[in-house]
Structure formats: structure tokens, C-alpha cells
């Protein structure tokens, strides 16, 4: 299963709910405003760093770029993917669970 989160963790609880229900080993893709969760040194970083121990976490590159978020500012271990990578993940991980 792949979870997608497209809401900022500073405004909404989509990421919290995703992390509460996501099974160990499932992948999480941050996209749209969800990419703000990928930043290090924020009030939300600790939970994302903890989640990296049991999940692969990805962030969508074009959405990072659109928001001026450089890869150097991301939490170590988060992988940046492009749209093609998004599609590959969707195929590889099976059912998609969108946390809207």
C-alpha cells in the first residue's frame, strides 16, 4: 500500500491520521502542500523522522520546487521522486490510500 498526503501538517491532521493508521512497511508519498512535512527543523519534523524508521517516505520533486523547498532542507532519508517515480510507486505498492 502507498499512502499519499497532500495537506500541510501545520494546518491539517491528514499526516497525523496517516501515521496513526499506516501499517509498518507501507510507503508514504508527500505531495502538493504535504511536502512541507518533508522539511527538517520544523515543529513537525520529529514525527516524520520517527516514521522513517518504519516507512519509506517520498516527496514529489515538482511540488517541492514550486514551493522553493531545496533538497538540502529536507529530512535525511526522504527520497525525492518525479511524476514518473510517482507512477512507478503506485504500480509497485498496490492500493493507494489518499489522506485528503
Amino acid at each position: 500500500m502507498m499512502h499519499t498526503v497532500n495537506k500541510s501538517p501545520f494546518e491539517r491532521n491528514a499526516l497525523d491520521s496517516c501515521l496513526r493508521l499506516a501499517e509498518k512497511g507501507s510507503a508514504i508519498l508527500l505531495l502538493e502542500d504535504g511536502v512541507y512535512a518533508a522539511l527538517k527543523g520544523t515543529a513537525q519534523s520529529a514525527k516524520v523522522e520517527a516514521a522513517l524508521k518504519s516507512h519509506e517516505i517520498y516527496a514529489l520533486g515538482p511540488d517541492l520546487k514550486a514551493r522553493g523547498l531545496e533538497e538540502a532542507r529536507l529530512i535525511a532519508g526522504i527520497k525525492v521522486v518525479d511524476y514518473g517515480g510517482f507512477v512507478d510507486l503506485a504500480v509497485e505498492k498496490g492500493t493507494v490510500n489518499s489522506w485528503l
Partner: protein
Amino acid sequence: MSEEVVFDTQGIVKKFMFVNRKAPYGTIYALEILESVLISAAFEQDTSVAFLDDGVFQIKKGSDTKDSGMKNFTNTYRALAGYDVEKLYVEKESLEARGLTPEDLIVKVQVLPAAELGKLMAEQDVLITG
């Protein structure tokens, strides 16, 4: 243009879970998902419905939309059993966080802790979320 499209879905049954995370009436999500649930049931799919986060407010007893002028769809959840949609799940943590108990809900549900609901989600073929 007038060619008839035939959907041959005979015998294809998938596990669909509809995941409600938004309160009713404030946005269109709850009503749209409810309509999708009925469509899924009409196609005789293996349908289940989950309520978590503010989605648990969708099935709060006592909804009366008369004064607000909105169409009331809360009672439609009670009709789901008539469509053989009987797998209704509520996340325990979300219910408790909102000061609700199963007695506050208009339908009979299974209350599951987050981990168990997460496991059920992982067993689905399709998740329709909102």
C-alpha cells in the same frame, strides 16, 4: 456517438472501502462519498465504510437541517443495511477524541482501534477517501 457502452462487470467483486474523514454539511465530501457507497453497493461490490477524524460526526444522532435549509442526508446512512452495506467501522481514537460513544451514532458500527482499522485498509482493493 450513439454507440452503446456495455460494462461487463459480471462476477467481478472487489473490496471497496469508503473512508470518511470530514464532517457533514460543511463540505460536499460526506454526501459525495455516501452516493458513491450506494453506487458501489448497486454493483454488488464487497463494500465497507469507515469513519474517522471528523468523519465520525457524519453519523451523529439528532441531525435536523430544517432551519439551515440544507438537504438532510444523515438518515441515508440508516438505509445502507437495505443495500447490504453492513460493514461500518469507526476508529476508536477519533470517536473518543470528540467525546462521543457508540450510543451517539445513528447506525450500528464496529469500533476499532487505529491499528486494526489500518490493517483492514491494507486488505482492500480500492480505497475511496475524503
